[in-house]
C-alpha cells in the first residue's frame, strides 16, 4: 500500500507524521519510508539509521561536439526551453534550463549533441531497527525536483513489493513536485494546522487531490490552536478527519531535538492507531 503524506503549507507536520507513522506501523508490518521532499529532506533527522546503499542520481543533458557540427541551428529551433542556443560559431547548452527531452540530440542531423550524465542529487537507502528508509537530496543549485522524485519512486518500487507499507514524505505546495510525489499513491494524508494559513493551504491541497481523483483524509496537527474552520469545512464537504494531534509545547520540544513522539506521548500513539485502523478498513 502506498501512502503519501502531503500538506499544501510547509511546516504543518508532514515529516513528524511520516516518521512516527512509519515507526508505529513497523511494529506490525513491513514498512519503507521514503523522503520525497528532495529540496529539504528532513526525515533522516528523526531516525537512527544505518546506511546500506548510496548512489548518485543523474539527469541527461546534451553536450556539444563540434567536430561534425554544421551550425545549422536546428537544436536551437527545437528546444522549447531555450536551453540550447547558437552564438556565432558556437552551440551553448544551459543545463539548468534543460528538461532532458532529447529533441535537440536526436533531431541533430550530424549527431553533434550526444546526451551525457549530469549529477542532480544523491539517493541513500538506510535501515532503521524496524524499517527501511530511502531519501534523495537535490544538489544545491539544481532547480528541478521532479526528475529526482521520479527516479526515487522507481528505486523504491523495484525493491519493495506491494505487501510493504510505502510511506512517502512529500514536498510542500501544490505544484509539480507534489503531483509527482502523490500521483501513484493509493491514499493521501493531508496534514494541516487549524490556523487561517493552514486552512487556506489545505483547501488548495484538497482541491489538488480532488483534481487528481485521489482518495484522501485529513490530519489536524496542533489541534486546539487557532479556530474550527477546517473541521467545519470537512463536515460540510464530507471529508474524513483521520486524527487530531494536540497542540503541546512538549511535542514541539521533542521535535526540536529530533525525537519521535508516539512512544513518549500517549495521545500521539492513540491518534496514529486511528489512522492505521482507517487505512486497514478503507484503503
Amino acid at each position, binding site marked *: 500500500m502506498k501512502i503519501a503524506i502531503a500538506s499544501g503549507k510547509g511546516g504543518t507536520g508532514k515529516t513528524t507524521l511520516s516518521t512516527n507513522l512509519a515507526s508505529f506501523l513497523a511494529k506490525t508490518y513491513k514498512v519503507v519510508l521514503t523522503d520525497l521532499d528532495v*529540496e529539504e529532506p528532513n526525515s533522516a533527522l528523526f531516525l537512527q539509521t544505518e546506511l546500506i546503499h548510496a548512489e548518485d542520481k543523474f539527469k541527461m543533458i546534451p553536450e556539444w561536439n563540434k567536430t561534425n557540427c554544421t551550425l545549422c541551428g536546428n537544436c536551437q529551433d527545437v528546444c522549447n526551453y531555450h536551453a540550447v542556443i547558437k552564438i556565432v560559431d558556437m552551440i551553448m547548452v544551459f543545463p539548468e534550463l534543460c528538461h532532458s527531452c*532529447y*529533441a535537440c540530440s536526436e533531431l541533430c542531423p550530424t549527431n553533434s549533441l550526444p546526451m551525457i550524465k549530469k549529477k542532480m542529487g544523491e539517493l541513500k537507502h538506510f535501515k532503521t531497527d524496524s524499517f527501511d528508509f530511502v531519501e534523495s537530496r537535490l544538489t544545491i543549485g539544481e532547480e528541478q525536483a521532479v526528475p529526482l522524485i521520479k527516479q526515487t519512486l522507481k528505486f523504491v518500487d523495484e525493491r519493495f513489493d506491494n505487501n510493504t507499507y510505502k510511506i512517502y514524505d512529500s514536498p510542500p505546495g501544490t505544484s509539480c513536485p507534489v503531483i509527482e510525489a502523490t500521483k501513484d499513491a493509493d491514499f493521501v494524508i493531508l496534514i494541516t494546522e487549524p490556523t487561517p*494559513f493552514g486552512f487556506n*493551504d489545505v483547501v488548495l491541497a484538497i482541491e*489538488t487531490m480532488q483534481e487528481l481523483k485521489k482518495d484522501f483524509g485529513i490530519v489536524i496537527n496542533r489541534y486546539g490552536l487557532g479556530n474550527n474552520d477546517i473541521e467545519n469545512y470537512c463536515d460540510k464537504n464530507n471529508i474524513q478527519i483521520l486524527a487530531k494531534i494536540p497542540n503541546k509545547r512538549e511535542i514541539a520540544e521533542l521535535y526540536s*531535538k529530533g525525537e519521535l513522539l508516539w512512544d513518549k506521548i500517549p495521545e500521539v500513539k492513540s491518534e496514529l492507531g486511528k489512522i492505521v485502523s482507517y487505512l486497514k478498513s478503507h484503503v
Partner: protein
Amino acid sequence: MKEIVIISGKGGTGKTSITASFAVLGDKDVVIADCDVDAADMHILLQPENAKSEDFYSGELAIIDQEICTQCGKCFDVCRFDAIDVKNGIHTVNELSCEGCGYCARVCPVDAITNIPLNVGKWHIANTRIHQPFVHAKLGIGADNSGKLVAQVKNVAKEIAEEYNRPYVLVDGSPGVGCPVVSSLSGAHFVVLVTEPTVSGLHDLKRVYELVNKFHIPAGCIINKSDLNSNKTNEIKEFLISEKIIHLADLPYDEAFTVAMTDCKTVVEFDDTKLKQILTETWNNIKELIK
C-alpha cells in the same frame, strides 16, 4: 529601490507572518510581492483588493487531433515524460505529465499534434487594507513553471516601486531550494532567513544558505521560537558566526502570531507586545543594513 527577500528553506517557520509585519511597519515605503505562488498566504493578513488580474501563460501542452492521428505511435516512442497514454490503441496526452517540449509534434508524420500555450495561473495587482501595492499570484493546480510566475510577480512589483518611488520591495519566498526559490533570489539586495531552533530548521537553513551564497547576496537571520530549544539556538548562532550571516533577532515562542493571524492581522498591530518591539527594531536594522 532595494529588494528584500524573506526565505527559510523549511516551511512553517514564520516567513509570511514576519514579512507581513515588515509590510505593515514599512507602510508607504514598500511594495509587497507574495512569491509563494504555490501556497500564498499573505493575503490573509493584508486583505488586498485586486485592482488588476491577468492570466499567466508559460510553456506549452501537446494536443493530439484524433481525426488526423493514424495512431502510429511515434509520439509515444520519443516522449521522455511518459506523457503519451495509449488505451485500446488510441494515443492521448496526459496533461499532468506533459512538459511541453514539443518533440512529439516535430516527429508526427501527419502533423496531428499541436502545442497550445499553457495557462499556468493568474497574477494580480492589489491594494492592501493599509493601501499599499501588493502583487500576488495563484499557480494553477499541479502547474509547472512556478519559477516564471515568481519572476513575473517580482518584476511587476519592481516596476511599481520604481514608478511610484517606493524604496523597498518586500518579497515573501516559498519553502525549499528549487526553481521558485532560485527565481525569487535573482536580483535581490538582501535576504532575510527565518529559521527555528529545531533539527530540521537548522538543517534546512544550511541548505538554503548554500543557495543564497551562490548568488553572493548579503543575508541576515531571524531565529523564531528561539526559546524552544536553547542548545539548537546556540548551534544556529555558531553557524551564523561561521558564515558571517548577520544575526538580526531572536523571537520568543509565542502563540501571539497565531492569535493575530486568526484575527487576520499582524502581530505588530497589537499594542505593547514584545514581538512588536523586536520586529520594529529588526525592520529599522534591515533598512540601515541595506542603505
